[in-house]
Structures are given as structure tokens and as C-alpha cells.
């Protein structure tokens, strides 16, 4: 008899108050060292979040060496400054630089960060080629520009597939099988809702114009709030639907055989929207100090609503690294990419 998959929920054990201290000391030290400490700060931050993410009795970890991150950032800084100056000259230059450089940075970052992320002592890998990265990101972006945005949902779909289809965990491969139609359909559905929203907004505006004592003030305040909530609502709608879609069609393919590990995502629009709204208002009201708490809340939501559907027929994962010569794997992953801050 086929064994049914055993759900293993993710669990985030971190707390806002603990992370708050880490976050503050990170910022303080980064400012005091003119940004040099930011590489160490990044490692500490990711270790905090990864070590607090439990799955099936074990936790994740991040193993990058801060010095490698520093090297990547030292390279990225002048490029960003150049891009900023180019933007002053003409927006054409900055788009050109964007198309030429961002795919490289993105692929390198994916390689670096995947290689330094571990679960149960085994590493992830990103095997996407630079060429494919350029095709998907730059050519795709050009397509979006030329189509005046119509091809945007399709571009997002391609980028998501590019990331997940090229992700590996030990000897397992990830496969993203989300249907294009459903993914793109989310955007169209969202647009339809937004148009309905605009109609409702227009009706309310008319009512305000007629009945309000100070129509100008009332209209500006109403539209300010309505627009803000509308944008957040739209973003949440797309995020929730497409995230659920992505994870329910994501699987881990073993080196041999037909069985797969799968995933479950139970994001829900109401709770997600509330999460984002409370985060936003709290961050603004506390002049930014709520950020660490917001980050922890996000991580907790993500974990609570995601589960791994472990296929019990499948055995353990095995490392594919041929030789791990050093204690901390640093030499083994040298040249596994640059972290350029994405």
C-alpha cells in the first residue's frame, strides 16, 4: 500500500525581543565601522533566522564567511554609485546598466547563498547558468518594457521557475510545476478587483463631495487611505495566491524513482493582509523600531503556513560534495559565487 505523505510543518522559534537586540547591535556596529561590520551583521542575522527555523526535528544554518560577503559588497558599492551617477545623466543609462549588471548579481547571489545554506549538514546549490539568467532577467525585462507591462506576470513566472528549477538540496532536485495560466491569471484577477475597487472609490468620492462639510480635505484623506489600502490589498492578493500556487506545485525529486517530496502552503488573504497592515502601521508609528518585530512576525507566519509533505518511501538525502576538506567548508565553497547584497 502506498504510504501517505507525512506532513512536517515548519516552525519558527525566534522572538521579536531577542532579535531586536541583535538587530540594534548590528546596526550600531555597522554605523560605527562605516558599513564594514554589515557583512558580519548579515551572517548573524541569517544564522538567527535559519537556526530558529525548525523542520522535522532539525534546523537550518547559514555558513558564509563574512569576509567573502565584504568582498562582494566592496565590489557592488562602486557599481551602485556609478549607476546612480548614470541615472543623473539619463534614465537610458541606468536601464542599460540595470540590464547588464543585475542578472549577474542575482545569479551570483543565488549561487553564493544557496551554497552556504544547510539543512541537516547538507548544502543547497544553485545550478542556474549565467546565460539563462540573462535570458530570463534582461531579455524578459526588455519584453516587459516593450509590451508596456503586459508581459510582466509572465516575466515574474519565468523568474520564479528559473530560481526553483535550478535549486538543489544535496542529491535532490527541486522542480517547480506551477501552471503558467493560473500564475498569470492571478494578476488579471487582481486587476479586475482593482477596477471594481476604483468604481467603489469613485462612488464614495461623489458621496463625500456632496455630503461632506470640507469636501477637499475629506477627498484627499479618503483617497490617501483608500489608495494605500488598495495597493497593499492587491500586493497581498497576488502574494498569497501565487505563493500557495508555487508551493503546492513544488516538489523535491530524488536521484532515482517516481516518488516525490511535496509541499503545502496555507497562506490566507485575510490573515496575511492583517499581518502586513499591522507591520506597516507599527513601523511608521515607532519610527522604524518595530522592524525587528515585524521581521519575526513575517518569519513566523511563513513557517506556520508552510509544511513539507515528506514521502516516507524516500530515503535520506546524500551529500554530493566530493570532498569536504576543511572544518568549516570555506575552501570547499570558495568560488561558489559572490554575495553582492541581494
Amino acid at each position: 500500500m502506498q504510504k501517505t505523505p507525512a506532513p512536517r510543518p515548519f516552525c519558527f522559534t525566534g522572538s521579536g525581543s531577542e532579535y531586536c537586540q541583535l538587530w540594534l547591535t548590528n546596526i550600531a556596529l555597522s554605523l560605527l565601522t562605516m558599513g564594514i561590520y554589515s557583512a558580519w551583521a548579515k551572517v548573524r542575522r541569517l544564522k538567527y533566522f535559519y537556526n530558529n527555523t525548525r523542520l522535522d526535528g532539525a534546523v537550518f544554518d547559514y555558513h558564509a564567511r563574512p569576509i567573502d560577503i565584504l568582498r562582494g559588497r566592496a565590489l557592488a558599492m562602486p557599481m551602485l554609485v556609478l549607476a546612480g551617477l548614470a541615472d543623473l545623466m539619463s534614465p537610458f543609462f541606468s536601464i542599460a546598466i540595470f540590464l547588464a549588471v543585475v542578472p549577474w548579481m542575482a545569479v551570483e547571489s543565488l549561487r553564493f547563498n544557496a551554497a552556504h545554506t544547510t539543512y541537516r549538514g547538507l548544502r543547497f546549490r544553485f545550478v542556474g547558468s549565467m546565460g539563462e539568467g540573462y535570458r530570463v532577467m534582461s531579455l524578459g525585462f526588455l519584453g516587459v518594457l516593450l509590451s508596456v507591462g503586459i508581459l510582466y506576470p509572465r516575466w515574474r513566472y519565468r523568474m520564479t521557475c528559473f530560481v526553483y528549477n535550478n535549486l538543489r538540496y544535496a542529491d535532490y532536485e527541486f522542480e517547480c510545476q506551477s501552471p503558467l495560466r493560473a500564475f498569470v491569471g492571478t494578476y488579471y484577477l487582481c486587476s479586475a478587483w482593482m477596477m471594481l475597487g476604483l468604481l467603489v472609490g469613485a462612488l464614495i468620492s461623489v458621496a463625500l463631495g456632496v455630503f461632506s462639510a470640507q469636501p477637499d480635505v475629506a477627498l484627499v484623506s479618503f483617497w490617501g487611505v483608500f489608495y494605500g489600502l488598495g495597493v497593499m490589498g492587491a500586493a497581498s492578493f497576488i502574494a498569497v495566491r501565487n505563493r500557495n500556487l508555487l508551493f503546492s506545485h513544488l516538489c523535491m525529486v530524488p536521484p532515482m524513482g517516481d516518488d516525490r517530496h511535496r509541499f503545502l502552503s496555507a497562506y490566507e488573504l485575510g490573515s496575511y493582509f492583517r499581518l502586513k497592515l499591522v507591520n506597516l502601521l507599527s513601523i511608521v508609528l515607532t519610527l522604524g523600531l518595530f522592524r525587528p518585530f515585524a521581521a519575526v512576525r513575517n518569519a513566523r507566519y511563513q513557517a506556520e503556513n508552510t509544511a513539507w509533505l515528506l514521502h516516507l518511501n524516500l530515503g535520506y538525502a546524500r551529500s554530493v560534495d566530493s570532498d569536504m576538506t576543511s572544518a568549516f567548508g570555506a575552501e570547499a565553497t570558495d568560488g561558489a559565487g559572490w554575495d553582492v547584497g541581494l
Partner: protein
Amino acid sequence: MSETYTALPVAALFFDGRVSAGQTVWLSVEAGALRLEGTGEAQVLTPDVLRVGERFCTAPWVIDCPDGARLELADHAAAEHLLAALGLGAGRGVGARPVVVVAALLLVSLITVWALTSGVPWVAREVALVVPARATQALGPGVLEALDRSVLQPTTLDEAHQQALRDRYAQLDPDARLVIYFRHSPRLGANAMALPDGSVVVTDALVRLAGHDDEIMAVIAHEAGHIAHRHHLRALIQGSLTATLVTLWLGDVSALAAAVPSVLLTQRHSREAEHEADLHAAHVLKAAGLSPESLAAMLSRIEPKDTLDLATDDPTFTRYLDSHPGLSQRLERLQRAAAAPH
């Protein structure tokens, strides 16, 4: 160096870095080395090959072992005792230490406020002055053409009058080598503006409104001040830096939340630019033997509702949004400049 370790063995989860399966091992200290006893044969590891991770309250304490292996310890108290016996550092505990949090918070707040109010303007000012004039000329070469298509029309002043004004200004301030354009603009009313490429546009209405040619010269001198101090470039740089800092702090929570403080700060920096331009005009006029009172007189003539440039004396919240300081403030400063000896 190592104490006599007589406590019970500590349980830990061991991952060998080759297979994802974890096994429970019992850790103890034997002759200054760590002994791992599990289902297979016992391993002994010397402290120098172990790397202890940062201790987080709610996450397992991680010890990295050679060849990609790792230990995850749930019992922090026992682990601390064990590590002390090995002579290994206990790893920076995060925990909640109010003193550190408060100190970090104060430091970060002070630095941020300083950066936004003094640091960024200073950087923008210095960078703007250093960028060669040719580069600023590249900024918005089409601005005049765009204005000619929208709000400006050909001037109704005769050529002789225009040339007389140009010559007069060239006498006053020969170093500026200012290019002055005259235009008729019903929409802008009596107004003058400095363009990004270093030229100045004066409207016919302003020429007609002036009681004396000196007043026109005063206004042109004010605009020349904007050009000499590179206010356009400075504003661009300041705007981008401010927006970047505010976004970094408030995070990618929402572009809207980040935009408001940026706008407020940018407007404030712009008011300072106006004061600088007023002072420059006062200086130029005095050097030519004219009185800064001419500028004050002209400003008083120009009616607020007519122009883009001047703010009213409206003492409400909108003062913070105005990019120009209130009229009475400017008049007061000009009177002081007129009275000053230099």
C-alpha cells in the same frame, strides 16, 4: 585549562555531513577533548577543530565539526558547562540585556538624525561643487524646450530692452557669464527660474512689475545664486541619499511610508537653498554698489498666488511642505544683509 568534567553526558543531535539522517549522540569531555558516543564507534574531537556558534535563546546551540559535520544541542545550560570544560568560548549570547539595547538605540538614533540633517546635506553640497560644470550642463538640456512647449511663450519685450537688461547684468556680475532668456507666461505670472543647464528664464510680467531695473537685477542675481551653488545637482544628490537612508531604515515595508519623511526632509533642504540664493544676491548687489533692499522690494511686489516660487506667510502645517521659506522670513534676512558691513 580544562576543569574536571564530572557531569552526566549531554545529549546532542549529530549530522555527519554526508547523509541527512541525524543521530543522537552523548557528549562528554575526555582528556580535554570532546567525546561523541552514538550507535557507532565513539569519536574524539579536539577543541581546535570545533567552531561554536552564537547562542540564541530558542534555537539549538550549534557546534560545527570537521568535514561538514555538526552538532545541535538543545540543553543550553549543560552545553555551556561542557564548552567551558573544553576551554571553548561560550559564544556571544543574545538574550535581553537592557543596557546594550538602550545604548545601541541611542547611538543609532543620534547617528541617523545627524546624517539626515547635517551629514547628507554636507555630502551633497561638496559633491555638487566638485562635479564639473560640463556634467551639470548635460542635466536636462531639454528643459527649456519642454517649458516652451508647455508654460512659456515667446517674449513680448523688444530686443533692445532684453539686451539692455542682459548687458546691465553682465556689468554687475561678469564672472557669472549668465545666459538670460525672456519669456511671456500667463500661467507663471511674474517669475524667474534657474534651469539645470545654468541659464536663467525671466518672465515679461516680472520685468513689468519691477519698480526699477535694480529689482530685476536682484531677482536675476538670486537665480544666479542657485546656479553658482549648484542647487539643482545638490537637490538631486540630497534627494537620492535621503530617500535611500530613509528606505534603509523603514525598510521595504512600503514605498509610501518611506516617501513621506523623504519629502519633508527634501523640502527643508530646499528652503536652505533659497536662503543661500538670497544671500548670494545680496552679496552680488552690494559688490556692485546696489542695495539688497531691491530684492526685498521685488519679493514684496510679487503676489503669492501668481507664482510657483514664493510661499505665503500661512502659518499652518503647510509650512513644512513649502520648498520656499515664508516671505517675512526672507525680507527680514535681506534687511539684515543690507545692514551688515561687508
